[in-house]
């Protein structure tokens, strides 16, 4: 899994490439430490290049949301494949998150 952060129009866009699973979730958590430290309040996680997420990955994304809520930050998700979106629907996490089809739509919706 690879994670890259980019600032677009005042929004931190985190692009994840690869699986978010039991092996990569700790790295994803660690990569967000700076986001929390700097209290970045507008964040988009672009999951367009993510083909697989397990319950560790879902838990990590929920944890990121919880951490950002502590300082009233807003988190949006974008680019979920049908398969990954299906897991969000099964676990009802699609109701918890603001999900856009593309990262651009998510950025423009702040």
């Amino acid at each position: 899994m690879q994670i890259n952060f980019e600032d677009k129009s005042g929004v931190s866009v985190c692009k994840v490439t690869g699986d978010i699973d039991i092996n990569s979730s700790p790295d994803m958590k660690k990569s967000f430490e700076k986001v929390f430290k700097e209290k970045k309040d507008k964040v988009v996680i672009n999951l367009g290049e993510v083909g697989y997420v397990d319950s560790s990955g879902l838990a990590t994304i929920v944890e990121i949301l919880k951490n950002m809520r502590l300082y009233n930050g807003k988190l949006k998700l974008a680019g979920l494949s049908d398969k990954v979106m299906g897991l969000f629907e099964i676990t009802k996490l699609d109701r918890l998150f603001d999900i856009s089809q593309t990262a651009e739509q998510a950025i423009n919706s702040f």
Partner: protein
Amino acid sequence: MKIKTFIENDSHLLKEISREVTDELRSLGTHEGLIFDIQVAMEEALRNAMIHGNKFDPQKKVSVEAEVVGGKVRVCVEDEGAGFVSSNVPDPTDEENILKTSGRGVYMINHLMDEVKYENGGRRVVMVKCLKQNNVKHGGK
């Protein structure tokens, strides 16, 4: 396809055995959506066995069996832990649990597979899924 093995509590071995099963299913011409459902369920069962069952005790192993019979895949995962009662696992989709960072694995297994049975005091989970294309469960996609 018939696979029977024991693995140590190592998340990289978890991925290896999962890949072995999904590669076999792919070679049988199984629909990718079904393979995804089976991969998620199997990895969740293996993860639960290593973390919650064996608690990463190096003296304990995880037994994995997978076979395709009569158009269905049957996967069994068994740990050497204390067991658990699956009905006692809180529903992670309930409002009071939705923000919890654990407890989704069993729920996902139950929703992605057709039949799920817990045996031997919850140490062994037996999961069955029919390999018909219209049986894809991940959100009905």
